[in-house]
């Protein structure tokens, strides 16, 4: 069977970030600045990605604005025909940088917002950030970028989902993405402090559904439910190694940003191989592509073409075997792991995202 062409590349330009959010999607072991790909290496990767079929590029991090060559990289992405999104905290988006990004043709900027309540927002981010974000949002709007507000939801902000949606509209967002925390890496480490109650989840779902209707035609709202409260797992990016790939700051190519936590999986690097070779041949991509790796109950399940057995990273993180059914699935006895997690007593404090050793080099 010929391999599909990927449509989407998430480029983690750096793991450096001024924020310390306890649900960060970066791995627990953050990569240091000196391991990051150079400007020329990223440019080569973007060209190769486009030739491979990638249409959408996420310029992400960490905080991508900490790369001084971001404008150069965004210009190159545009010149090879990629539709690029800058995924940013907003910190460091000065007027001159924003104007330059507009000039070179960057199309879409996504700014993370932690909460509508400024005190809680800064408690989550672990740093003063609210005013910077408002200023950044104003610039993005003024310069006419496509503008998405992105919010990670959890126990401390879920009850304000309506105010958060209204705030995004006031900021002039074209879209808001509301995604409940996913529990890998940092999120899993902080699960007891982040996990919402069933009541919170149900109320928020109703509020979101009403808001979707209310804002129709003005602001697009996408709402991702917390999978622990669902009966079936989520279909991660249309299946492993099918449409999506991630490149870590050091050039490692991953089928998913959570994949580094699957110990035993080895990743190939664009410093040694072409992106095309990695997409086709890298063991990390081939291992869970298609359905021949599946065990029961997935193997004989009609849902395997719907959710592809769920998330490999979650299966590994919670069961120790990435080839197991995602334990969210109520068709597997592994589901008791999720049910037990839902009974976990709530903890008050976050363990913030910081590099494991010395402070980051400046």
């Amino acid at each position: 069977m010929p391999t599909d062409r990927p449509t989407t590349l998430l480029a983690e330009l750096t793991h450096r970030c001024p924020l310390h959010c306890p649900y960060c999607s970066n791995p627990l072991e953050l990569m240091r600045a000196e391991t990051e790909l150079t400007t020329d290496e990223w440019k080569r990767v973007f060209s190769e990605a486009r030739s491979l079929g990638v249409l959408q590029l996420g310029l992400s991090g960490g905080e991508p604005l900490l790369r001084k060559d971001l404008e150069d990289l965004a210009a190159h992405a545009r010149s090879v025909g990629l539709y690029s999104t800058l995924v940013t905290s907003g910190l460091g988006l000065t007027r001159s940088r924003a104007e330059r990004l507009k000039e070179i043709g960057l199309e879409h900027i996504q700014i993370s917002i932690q909460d509508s309540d400024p005190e809680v927002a800064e408690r989550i981010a672990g740093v003063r950030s609210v005013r910077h974000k408002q200023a950044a949002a104003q610039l993005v709007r003024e310069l006419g970028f496509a503008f998405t507000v992105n919010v990670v939801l959890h126990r401390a902000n879920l009850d304000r989902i309506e105010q958060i949606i209204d705030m995004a509209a006031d900021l002039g967002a074209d879209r808001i993405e509301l995604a409940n925390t996913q529990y890998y890496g940092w999120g899993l480490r902080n699960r007891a402090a982040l996990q919402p109650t069933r009541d919170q989840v149900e109320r928020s779902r109703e509020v979101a559904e009403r808001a979707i209707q209310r804002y129709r035609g003005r602001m697009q709202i996408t709402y991702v439910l917390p999978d622990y409260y669902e009966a079936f797992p989520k279909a991660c990016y249309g299946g492993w190694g099918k449409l999506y790939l991630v490149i870590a700051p050091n050039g490692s190519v991953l089928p998913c940003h959570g994949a580094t936590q699957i110990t035993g999986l080895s990743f190939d690097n664009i410093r040694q191989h072409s992106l095309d070779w990695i997409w086709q041949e890298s063991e990390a991509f081939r291992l869970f592509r298609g359905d021949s790796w599946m065990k029961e109950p997935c193997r004989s399940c009609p849902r395997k073409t719907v959710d592809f057995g769920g998330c490999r990273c979650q299966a590994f993180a919670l069961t120790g075997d990435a080839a197991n059914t995602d334990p969210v699935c109520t068709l597997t006895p592994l589901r008791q792991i999720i049910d037990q997690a839902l009974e976990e007593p709530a903890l008050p404090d976050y363990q913030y995202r910081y590099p494991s050793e010395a402070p980051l080099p400046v």
Partner: protein
Amino acid sequence: MEDSRILTADSRPKLWRLARLDFDPVRQRHVLLYPEGAVLLNDTGAAILELCNGTHSVGDIVAILNERYHADVDADVTEYLDIMAQRELIRAD
């Protein structure tokens, strides 16, 4: 408030402000690109969307394509436009 989901023959649909049509030389297909999304188009889909510029009405688009393809494409075009409008990828003023 006007409902963008319902297109009439007089509606003048145009692409969502944030969406753009492009040609993908890798797949040799037209694509519609927008924030966090892409739709791969067939030739007919691309021909329809190219006419969604806010000046042609749905009726105009049908007439233009009927003539171009020497066929009665009315139902297909209307259905396609409705689907794209449901997805908010085209809007009608």
